[in-house]
């Protein structure tokens, strides 16, 4: 039973789907951000696996930069969340509907 690239890609896809579900169902902004991390992590597995099977470093590089991006996003996301929380006292996204239509 050989573990092929497909295995990893399927895993990546499933994790990505889990992330998507999280993104869709979360109302707590903080936990919503968690879900976006899952998305990026899912792709990272894929990249690493592809790199492995193509015997190519590029995939690993991509994953590396994805991690960097994820980290930066967390910083900005939390910053935004903090001002929002300071202003409203909540991190529930359902109250965020002052603009619509």
């Amino acid at each position, binding site marked *: 039973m050989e573990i092929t690239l497909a295995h990893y890609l399927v895993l990546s896809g499933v994790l990505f789907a889990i992330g*998507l579900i999280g993104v869709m169902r979360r109302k707590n902004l903080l936990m919503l951000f968690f879900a976006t*991390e899952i998305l990026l992590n899912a792709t990272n597995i894929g990249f690493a696996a592809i790199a492995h099977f193509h015997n190519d470093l590029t995939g690993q*590089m991509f994953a590396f930069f994805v991690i960097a991006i994820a980290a*930066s996003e967390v910083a900005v996301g939390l910053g935004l969340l903090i*001002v929002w929380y300071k202003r409203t006292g909540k991190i529930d996204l359902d109250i965020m509907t002052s603009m619509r239509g």
Partner: protein
Amino acid sequence: MFEAIAFYLFAALTIGMFTITVMTSQALYALTAMAAGMIFISAFFFMLGADFLGVVQIIVYTGAVMALYAFGMMFFDTTRTLVEKRENPRTIFLLGVIAATLVVFIMVSPIISSNIEAHYPIDAALGNSQAIGYVLFTKFLVPFEVAAVMLLVAMIAGIVLAGKKMDKSLTLMAEEEIAFMNATQDKPQDEEGAH
């Protein structure tokens, strides 16, 4: 065989952890589960020979990101469970499942790769970190530097947004109020953000 066992084990663990992250109503559980999931992911990296990536994964994600989130959680006082209103949970899962199925459907088909050649082949003789170093500082030098800028931007943004100066909004204050505020303050607080 070992590889297979390890793969399935970690796959199950990762999926389980992330499922908890997504499904639990306790922020703390979610955070913990995610941190665990990230570590399990790094296991894949090691399995795939991407040692450097595995280390970075653990340090950056489990170390930095999780710490940041934990800090955030404390700030937001999320220990009290947030009652999340759910509309159409079925739709959501349906969409998720469809997405997963579709992706999987494609992914299981073999990649017909007749002519893929590695641009930066992994040299078994070279350690992973070294190899990465080579590539990173030649080919990927520019993205690397830009990533640095990005982190700087993120830092500045984070600091500025979370800073105290945001507490009073000049945007919403009348001009007279701003003038009054500036007069009463001994020292303008302008540098604060940059520090």
